[in-house]
């Protein structure tokens, strides 16, 4: 299909003046406009992916990507090795069901907090998308960052875009094999680092480092490291932009967050058209041409293989590679920068972009409230829990003196980092005898079970079912307490 594409025709005359390292012949070009196929009459329902060869480009936005990508990468690779209070700072201990996040220890019952964190993060994403478009996709999404790293590996092992295209067309040779071998080795190496690091978040990293390489680690560790290594290799090496285009839900529902004041990467059609090649010295305006010299550089650098000049497309992850590419060409041609630039639909139409829009104000307001509540909840979270299970074998017992007895199992869960003493008490009965321990001591992270028999004199029973509450209070810190409801059942009068 690609040979019929209009791109081939255009690129035949695409050599811009003054720039020597551009494609020599049309054979070197792979048409990137593969997505208009649906409009054709006969369609193969199972489209074969056309490999995208990206050209490397440097520029302002690529430096920004470097400055956002590297800290995130470093954080990912180094965080499992960080220690706090003599333990791993970030450890999701699945077998013990404890989740260490810096100074906090979370338990399975804290999962609503995780849900809220996700909701807050989602709203953050909506807000930033409404304001600045898909900056998450272009700058910070692991899919983008890892793909960029793999492309960089391609660049240093197989050479730049033209060399790679030629290499793939060459018949097998020792040289080709060596280049491919180095590329795949580096891909695999980085994939392994990624997979190993990922598992280090789930098992003590230092122990794993020793045990993994002495072949004494648990089987599941090897299995999962292998899985994530392969997944990374296939994902960043082969799937790449297909994840953004076919799998990522965010790419599909982002349009709901966009409005005409949202920043997008856009081609200034009014300024660029009609496009066409020209000599640097000629007076192109007199010939009726726009600023676009139709060098196709913006297409060649695009990691998702689209032509930004066709307008806003769902494949665009706003990585701004095309902006840097175009700016470099504009510089060489001596034209002003910004033919392709971050702008808004309003701006392009000649209006003024509004920043304070109801959507952004609303999102920000909600995020502020939710973040505040979230921090408050985390800050005031009591590391203590009480569960009460009433014995149900019989409704009640009668003691030798005629008193009515109910038996309860009190489970005290001490989630604090240190052992603590607690006092158990009961609210809801006027007169009762507590048979069982009342001053207890629970180890850190321990669930202690205390069976307790509550005795009420027969003449004190007013109603058959009395709602009661058990309470556990820390002896040292009175503000740490937990309550659990139960019932005291007596004879029906």
């Amino acid at each position: 299909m690609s040979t019929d594409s209009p791109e081939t025709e255009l690129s035949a005359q695409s050599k811009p003046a003054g720039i020597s390292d551009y494609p020599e012949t049309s054979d070197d070009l792979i048409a990137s406009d593969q997505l208009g196929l649906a409009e054709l009459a006969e369609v193969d329902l199972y489209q074969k992916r056309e490999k995208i060869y990206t050209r490397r480009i440097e520029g302002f936005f690529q430096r920004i990507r470097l400055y956002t990508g590297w800290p995130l990468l470093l954080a990912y690779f180094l965080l499992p090795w960080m220690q706090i209070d003599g333990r791993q700072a970030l450890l999701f201990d699945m077998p013990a069901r404890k989740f260490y996040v810096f100074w906090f220890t979370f338990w399975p019952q804290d999962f609503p907090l995780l849900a809220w964190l996700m909701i807050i993060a989602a709203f953050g994403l909506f807000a930033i998308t409404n304001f600045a478009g898909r900056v998450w996709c272009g700058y910070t999404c692991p899919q983008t960052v890892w793909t960029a790293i793999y492309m960089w590996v391609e660049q240093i092992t197989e050479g730049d875009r033209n060399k790679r295209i030629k290499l793939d067309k060459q018949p097998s040779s020792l040289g080709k094999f060596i280049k491919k071998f180095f590329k795949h080795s580096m891909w695999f190496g980085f994939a392994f680092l990624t997979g190993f690091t990922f598992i280090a978040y789930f098992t003590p990293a230092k122990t794993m480092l020793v045990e993994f390489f002495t072949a004494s680690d648990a089987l599941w560790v090897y299995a999962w490291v292998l899985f994530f290594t392969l997944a990374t290799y296939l994902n960043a090496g082969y799937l790449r932009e297909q994840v953004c285009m076919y799998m990522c839900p965010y790419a599909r529902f982002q349009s709901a967050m966009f409005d005409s004041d949202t920043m997008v990467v856009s081609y200034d059609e009014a300024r660029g058209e009609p496009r066409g090649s020209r000599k640097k010295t000629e007076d192109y305006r007199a010939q009726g041409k726009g600023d676009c010299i139709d060098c196709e550089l913006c297409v060649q650098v695009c990691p998702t293989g689209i032509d930004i000049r066709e307008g806003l497309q769902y494949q665009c992850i706003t990585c701004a590679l095309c902006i840097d590419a175009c700016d470099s060409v504009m510089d060489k041609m001596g034209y002003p920068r910004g033919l392709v630039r971050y702008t808004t639909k309003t701006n392009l139409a000649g209006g003024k972009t509004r920043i304070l829009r109801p959507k952004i104000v609303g999102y920000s307001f909600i995020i502020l409230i939710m973040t505040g509540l979230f921090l408050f909840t985390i800050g005031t979270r009591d590391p203590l829990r009480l569960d009460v299970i009433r014995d149900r074998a019989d409704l009640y017992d009668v003691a030798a003196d005629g008193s009515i007895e109910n038996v309860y199992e009190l489970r005290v869960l001490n989630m604090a980092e240190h052992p603590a003493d607690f006092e158990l008490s009961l609210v809801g009965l006027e007169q009762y005898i507590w048979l069982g321990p009342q001053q207890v001591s629970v180890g850190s992270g321990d669930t202690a079970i205390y069976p307790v028999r509550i005795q009420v004199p027969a003449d004190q029973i007013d109603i058959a079912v009395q709602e009661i509450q058990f309470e556990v209070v820390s002896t040292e810190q009175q503000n740490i307490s937990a309550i659990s409801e139960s019932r005291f059942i007596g004879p029906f009068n």
Partner: protein
Amino acid sequence: MSNFWSAWIIILTVVTLLLNLWILLANRKSTNAGGTTGHIHDGIEEYDNPLPQWWLILFLGTMIFGAGYLVAFPGLGKFPGILNWTTVGSYETQIAKAEEQYAPLYAQYAATPVEQLYRIPEAMKMAQRIFGNNCAQCHGSDAGGAFGFPNLTDDDWLWGGDAHQIRTTISQGRTGVMTAWGGILNTEQVDGAIAYLQQISGQNHDQQLADLGEGVFSTYCMVCHGATGEGNILFGAPNLTDDIWLYGPDEVWIRQAVVVGRNNQMPAHNVLLSEDKIHLLTAYVYGLSRN
């Protein structure tokens, strides 16, 4: 399952599988590829194209899996499958696996005598869980007993409270029988016996009846409950002189016991729990009245 229904299921299953295979292979290639089937709905035509190959392969894959499954596992009528897999067998395998996994945890305390074991908190924490799962239903979470089920936290033992006796009770179970005297004693004798019981256990009683009852007691009751009424752990006969009552101290419960008797059952747990678990439980019960 009768042979007829077994054959019925086998035939249905195999024939359906083969038919499916035939339909799949017969439609593998289209003679009319690119054309339409002639089905038109709202202007949308249906192409007469073959299945995509990956779909065909997946389809064949599921069929091969299905055939393999029917050979290996029960599915074809009465044929048990060559793996001889059963739900019961699966359950037993998992139980055996769990036993194997947890047995060392219990075994580490097997050599510690009960008299020392009950002072080890880690062991008692495990024992508390075993008690909760196996004993608390009748004796209560706090082992304080219930109507008809003895309190294990006091010093009063029906069958003896040393380590060996407790272990025997848990392991082999106990059957405590109180004879129904209603058919042997007359009403006056029953009233007398009850009054005498009230007297020796320190309750309000009719002295005249109690004097009569003393004779009844020494004739009929002392065989098991002893001359002083303090019970006998050989028969599990309770001490009648204290204020601990398995069925309550009220006259109505005492009368019921005397007239229609009692039949108490502690089930044997050696068929349910391993030796090491019973050892831990023994120490737990031993410790209940001593901590």
